[in-house]
């Protein structure tokens, strides 16, 4: 016996709507739960004082510093490489074997799990290059991790710049490089910054790749060769070793707010970028 199409349609829509609601509910539950439990703990004192007794008491100041410095360092290293790659792919070549190799490398790199980046960063930067558990090892590892994101978003942003802009620039006698620097990149900037912000967001929330490369020292770093602990790592250690549930919730709340803020900025920028393009 077959149901009339009208009823299968209604059933299907109901099921699909239910699934969508479950998805949204699950994701929102996580955010609301963490903020509900964590926000009461968060205060200026919590943000700007040092942890005591391994984080059982006190604040999260050094980990806040770690979560600012490490992503910035990662971005500072990844930005020239990523944007440079995007410029090369869009402005300097057609589709050739070389670009296929580059795209293949980027796609593969994007799929590698963060724990593998952690293993690699540990053996290569920490052990072989003798950088130790440090800001530098962590930053380099994160830079490799977010490189594909930056390449892709920059490439899209650059491709979105109308070809006419370049033609005008060429017709005025500008060379390719002058055109890139003075015309293409300024126009693609919001899109590129979106990619950078998404990269920063990923760095802030990363744990596995950071804990084996940047270490987990609770002291404020004095140089690029000092170990740092990020908020994500701090939260992991607090939660896993059961040091303090209260401080764990507080750290998680700050962590989530930071990531959401960074990602929201990215989307806002992208939105503005698209709005301007389609005008």
């Amino acid at each position, binding site marked *: 016996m077959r149901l009339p199409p009208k009823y*299968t349609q209604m059933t299907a829509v109901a099921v699909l709507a239910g699934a969508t609601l479950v998805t949204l509910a699950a994701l929102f539950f996580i955010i609301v739960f963490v903020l509900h439990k964590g926000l009461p703990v968060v205060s200026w004192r919590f943000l700007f004082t040092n942890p005591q007794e391994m984080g059982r008491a006190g604040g999260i100041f050094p980990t806040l510093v770690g979560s600012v410095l490490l992503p910035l360092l990662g971005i500072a290293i990844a930005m020239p490489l990523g944007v440079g790659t995007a410029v090369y792919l869009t402005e300097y070549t057609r589709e050739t074997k070389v670009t296929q190799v580059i795209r293949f490398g980027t796609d593969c790199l994007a799929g590698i*799990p963060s724990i593998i980046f952690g293993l*690699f960063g540990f053996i290569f930067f920490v052990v072989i290059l003798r950088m130790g558990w440090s800001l530098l090892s962590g930053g380099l590892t994160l830079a490799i991790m977010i490189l594909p994101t930056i390449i892709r978003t920059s490439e899209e942003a650059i491709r979105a710049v109308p070809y006419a802009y370049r033609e005008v620039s060429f017709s005025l006698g500008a060379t390719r490089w002058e055109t890139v620097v003075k015309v293409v990149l300024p126009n693609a900037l919001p899109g590129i910054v979106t990619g950078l912000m998404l990269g920063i967001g990923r760095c802030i*929330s990363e744990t596995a790749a950071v804990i084996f490369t940047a270490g987990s020292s609770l002291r404020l770093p004095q140089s690029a060769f000092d170990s740092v602990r990020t908020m994500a790592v701090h*939260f*992991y250690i607090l939660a896993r070793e059961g040091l303090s549930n209260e401080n764990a919730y507080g750290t998680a709340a700050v962590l989530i707010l930071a990531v*959401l803020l960074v*990602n929201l900025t990215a989307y806002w920028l992208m939105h503005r970028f698209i709005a301007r393009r389609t005008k």
Partner: protein
Amino acid sequence: MKFNREKLVERLLLVVALSAMAALALIAVFIFKEGVPFLLEVGPRQFLLSSDWRPQEGRFGVYPMIVASLWVTLGAMLIGAPLGVAGAIFLNEFVPRWVMRIIKPTIELLAGIPSVVFGFIGVVVLAPLIRAHLGGPGLSVLAGAVVLGIMVLPTVISISTDAISAVPNSYREGALALGATRWQAVHMVVLKAARSGIVASLILAMGRAVGETMAVIMVAGNAVKVPHSVLDSVRTLTANIALEMGYATGKHREALFATGVVLFVVVMILNSIATAAVRRRFGTKGTRK
């Protein structure tokens, strides 16, 4: 003068552009250099098929971890795939555009929730529920699968949505003109046309689930044994690396790198399949969104 500078810039950019490939090569070389000699020394059979993991006594068998990764990943896909694909269909076909324009970015935004937070929610909310209602230790295959299933939802929804909205509107109109209902048009025409993109989203999600580490360490319990039920505590390949890396030395450390080699190969295979699936559908544009 000017000509030379242009050439120089082009060369430099080419070098920069090869950085991603170089990084990938470095990663592969160093993980394999540490892991493969050990793998050959112990014997791949022994390493992959023995259930005896006692690093202090020189026993290295990762069979339980392989089974655990498999169970947790499949479980996550059983939860994430139907929910994610259903969400993508619903958002594309059954709600007004403006609703989708709000909800899709929201879901992508939620992809930014750190995996440690997902894991923690699993520990404080999900595990006690499982312990109370289904028995067992709570931290289990089931808890891991549910947490990972939710974690991969943004990936599935985001990429599936792109695949579904890439289906030309004329396909839908054609089906509707023949008297099909909206749902008939969707499942008979649109889904068939978007199939390879949806499959790619699922395989990419699977890659993420296999590779996820911190969330799984927190919720899956980490016992080294072959699971007999979904309520058993298990340790995945990724968890095995992360848990012991902190103090491992010598052969033990090499064994963890060998675990990394296994993981690396599995993820590469999954990603290649996904890339191939997308390429077939969209030509050379690949997985670029």
